[in-house]
């Protein structure tokens, strides 16, 4: 095929860039994209909750499996850790909007640390919990849901890590902080999701 031919008789000044797209919505495209992505993510979790529902409710399996115990308290503390990371992230975000670089750096650093702590506690829980996903379906669901969430925390941490490094390098400003905003939404989603996971797995 021939290379695309510009419109005959077009103004030749237009060759080095596209025309500015019309903005037909007030919503920021990147924000909207992230929200749609989160809808997809919610549906992945929904599918895992379907498995949980079938195995626990429809299959009437004991929960947790006979002879096992879920560390409700430790996980509860861990929940608090993860939730506070959302707060520190918010602090970082408001700081950058106010031009407070210390708040940005400290906020990001704490957020990253809290997130990493959560993940470590989770791994530690796996090591000491006393059952494996291969033992019974309840174990599979437990590891499936917490593992799926853990994978999201891990990815979130990678994003936050980059943001943290960048904020220490002096990136982001009052005007331009989308590189912080978009991963932030994701992180908040991961936190909210954990509340749902924690409630269904540990509490109910």
């Amino acid at each position, binding site marked *: 095929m021939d290379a695309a031919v510009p419109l005959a008789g077009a103004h030749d000044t237009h*060759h080095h860039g596209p025309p500015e*797209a*019309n903005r037909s919505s007030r*919503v920021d495209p990147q924000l*909207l994209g992230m929200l749609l992505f989160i809808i997809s993510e919610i549906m992945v979790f929904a599918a895992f909750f379907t498995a949980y529902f079938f195995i626990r409710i429809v299959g009437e399996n004991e929960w947790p499996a006979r002879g096992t115990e879920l560390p409700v308290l430790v996980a509860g503390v861990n929940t608090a850790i993860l939730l506070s990371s959302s707060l520190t992230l918010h602090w970082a975000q408001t700081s950058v909007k106010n031009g407070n670089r210390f708040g940005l750096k400290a906020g990001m650093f704490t957020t990253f640390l809290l997130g990493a702590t959560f993940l470590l506690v989770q791994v530690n829980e796996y090591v000491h919990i006393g059952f494996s996903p*291969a033992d019974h379906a309840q174990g*599979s669901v437990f590891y499936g849901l917490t593992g799926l969430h853990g994978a999201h925390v891990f990815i979130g941490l990678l994003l936050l890590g980059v943001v943290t490094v960048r904020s220490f390098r002096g*990136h982001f400003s009052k005007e331009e902080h989308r590189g912080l905003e978009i991963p932030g939404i994701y992180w908040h989603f991961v936190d909210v999701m954990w509340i749902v996971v924690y409630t269904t797995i540990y509490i109910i």
Partner: protein
Amino acid sequence: MPVTLRQPGWSRASASMVLGLAFSYALSIGARAILGYDPLLDGESVMRIALISVPFFFLVGLGCFSYWFRWASGAPTVPEDHSGHGAKSWKSYFYPNTDHKVIGIQYVVTSFFFMFVGGLLAMLIRAELAAPGRQFVDSNAYNGLFSVHASLLIFLFIIPVFAGLANYVLPLMIGAPDMAFPRLNALSYWLLPVAGTMMMLSFFAPGGSFATGWTAYATLSNTAPLGQEFFTIGVQFAGASSIATALNFLVTIITMRAPGMSFFRMPLLVWANFSTSLLVVIATPFVAASQFFVLLDRSLGFNFFDHGQGGDVLMYQHVFWFYSHPAVYIMMLPGFGIVSEILAVKSRKPVFGYRMMAFSLLAIVALGFTVWAHHMFVSGMQTWIRVPMMVTTAIIAVPTGIKIFSWLATMWKGVLKLDTPMLFTMGFLTMFVLGGISGVMLAMIPLTIHVSDTYFIVAHIHYVLFGGSLFTIFAGVYFWFPKMTGRMYDEKLGKLHFWLTFIFFNATFAPMHVIGVQGMPRRVADYAEQFASWNLVISLAAFGTGISSLVFAYNMVASWRGGPRAESNPWRSLTLEWQVSSPPPIFNFDEIPTVVGGPYEYGVPGAVHGVFGGSPTTAGPGRRGPATTAGAPSA
């Protein structure tokens, strides 16, 4: 390091894949050492990790992620030089490109490649089934043939080819210079060859290709040989690709429409892809999850489907069909959009009941989520679920019926140009009605108890996906061929292609209704003597269908290379994609048009859809009808 290995491209991608393989070995051996498993080297585990990781190494090597890595690191990004935008020669099509038109063509050509592979597998299937007893493949290979056939044609042909066509025309139609996320768009495309190659390579896996059907029901898929994982993991890549594209479409449609293009001034193809994308974003994660479960069960000993440990076998089917029923609409709604476009243009009339056409799409989206268990009437699930699902399944025929009737009304009293796209559209109308009718029959539980898992189902799904989707795909490819290639296709060959396809398609699939009801189960390498004569007829007709697709292939290749040059608007269409040159300029528009009216105002005197730089675009200069029909004839 040589320059070629540092710059994104195929050399770096190849080297990167070798690296990925090494990584897979290291990870597998390392993990097994830490966990204390005995043979440190386990082929299956290496293969599994490689299936997941090598594609990423490939994509990184090819440069799909380069910009994001730079952006995330905060390194000063190169000011947009558009070096990766637009095709400079045919070679550009083999590299990631950010131009939606290049990506659209990449999509369409790649998916048609997979169509020919899938079609070839169908030929092998029919050769084996031409007579009872074993012809030339054993039953394991046979199960592999139909499994790969279905998986390729569903996940790598019908779903992506629609995404490809829409990728090309949708931004043009709504007056956008490109998609909202051009780099994500490029990545979406490159995930496809990855998924398709993986599925095809499964034939070389120890134990043969995956052979559990495209449905891959647990527990069969849990215990199948390694080839199964080429499906399990391949689907993840195909699914990720369609989610990313859908997200891209949604954001593009919502945020990048030309001034004046309200939702109810959008062409119905845009509406159709809007609805489809909603379905994809919401439903596709479920098929991903269903395959995650299988993968976890297979590789890490999870018990999602092990009933002895409390697992639930039927859960797989619920999760799978919660995606795969909507998937039928994912494979159909974009075709509805194509049909609406072509019928309006080729009948020279506005689409009848435009708003109802848009609303019925949304109704199908909503209802589509409430019917999944009609695939499970004989699965042994709780019996009470069946009746509500029967009712919703029947009701979903209402919005579909509205569309059919509206299309018929659109044609009525028009001035019908019976060229190839129109013939395929009209073929679609009649054949899809048959598929819809057998669909309503299948909603009726007592009948489904008898015909489920028989050739009646095979007939039904091929009337929907071949007589329905594929006919609209052909129609769309012919219709936009001039726009995409700048050349005209050969009308005579196009018509020949239509009639051959139409006749042989019916000869192939209509008899399947009969043998299905008579009691021939599907997915069998061998069958009882009583079905022999019909199967021979079906096989012969299937070969005819195969040959007819060669006419298409020849027409496309020859016309693309040497067809007459296309004008910018050969169909006298009003929609925006026809108001620019064929093929369109590299950035689509010199200046974003303003939309001042509906997209299908054919026959309305002086009607205008888009205005470019103050000059209204009618359906081509001086091509208005002499008597722009003010009143209906004899109305």
